[in-house]
């Protein structure tokens, strides 16, 4: 017999809980003020503007370093989230006991190349990462960041990441 569908509240709690555990496990993301918006399995990273992100006070413009960090955090969280999604949806990992300390290890950055396409304005930034290839050991991720207009990205990045060793 067919199982009745899970109540939507249960589904949301599980997914939001897992995402919170993942994002709260990165102190530097919290330091910069990065948070994530979730629509199903799709994540959008948000970097709310704050004065301490400024790198050029004359224009003014965001510091290239915070933009690089924003893109790198987006890529790592996307990789961690994609792994976690399968684990919590299949029930292999119980999302209700996930915390920053019990989380599976995060991928490590091997290299990242950031293209600065236009000056980052003193306002909120958004980023989405796409996993181009994810193998057992290495992953390649592309990230794009924009501010007011989705079609006018202010930065993009490609990075390679070392995936943590899994038990299976």
């Amino acid at each position, binding site marked *: 017999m067919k199982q009745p569908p899970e109540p939507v509240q249960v589904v949301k709690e599980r997914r939001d809980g897992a995402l919170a555990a993942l994002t709260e*496990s990165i102190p*530097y993301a919290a330091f910069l003020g990065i948070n994530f918006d979730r629509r199903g399995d799709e994540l959008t990273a948000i970097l709310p503007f704050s004065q301490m992100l*400024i*790198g050029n006070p004359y224009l003014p413009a965001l510091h*290239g370093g915070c933009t690089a960090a924003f893109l790198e955090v987006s890529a790592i969280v996307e990789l961690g989230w994609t792994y976690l999604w399968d684990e919590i949806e299949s029930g292999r990992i119980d999302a209700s006991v996930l915390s920053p300390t019990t989380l599976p290890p995060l991928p490590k950055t091997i290299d990242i*190349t*950031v293209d600065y396409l236009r000056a980052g304005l003193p306002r909120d930034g958004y980023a989405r990462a796409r996993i181009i290839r994810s193998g057992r050991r290495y992953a390649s991720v592309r990230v794009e960041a924009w501010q007011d207009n989705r079609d006018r990205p202010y930065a993009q990045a490609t990075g390679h990441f070392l995936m943590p060793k899994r038990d299976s």
Partner: protein
Amino acid sequence: MTSLTREEKTAVARQFTEALPHCKALGMQAYEIADGKAVISMDYDSRFIGDPQTGVIHGGAVSALMDTCAGAAVMSHEKAPNITATIDLRIDYMRPATPGQRITARATCYHVTRSVAFVRAVATDEDESRPVATATGTFTADHGLDALTAEGGK
């Protein structure tokens, strides 16, 4: 517009760098900034951690240090203008920085054309024999912009 002397350029670059809000937030300290070379360091801080299970500093904080140091190297180059922006920056991570240790970046601006500056940088922790990360980047060297900001700043 009269061009600045070497000492003035160095002072401008150092002051400029340490006063940038994002550099201040990360506690960056500029040392030598002259002749296309820059040395900038950043103390260990638990707020900059990327992975609490290891206590290792986030790559993004190292990127910010590398970007700042590379930019400072460009601004101190005799052929480059006093203002620059990153075009692209690639960072390779050789090993995790040892938790608790300060990170120091050394950048060299090794070539400047009429519009582009090329930079290499290395970051180490207190063990300077084994690099933590290396970077290569290109920066704008727009001399027209330099004149603009000099006028605008008055």
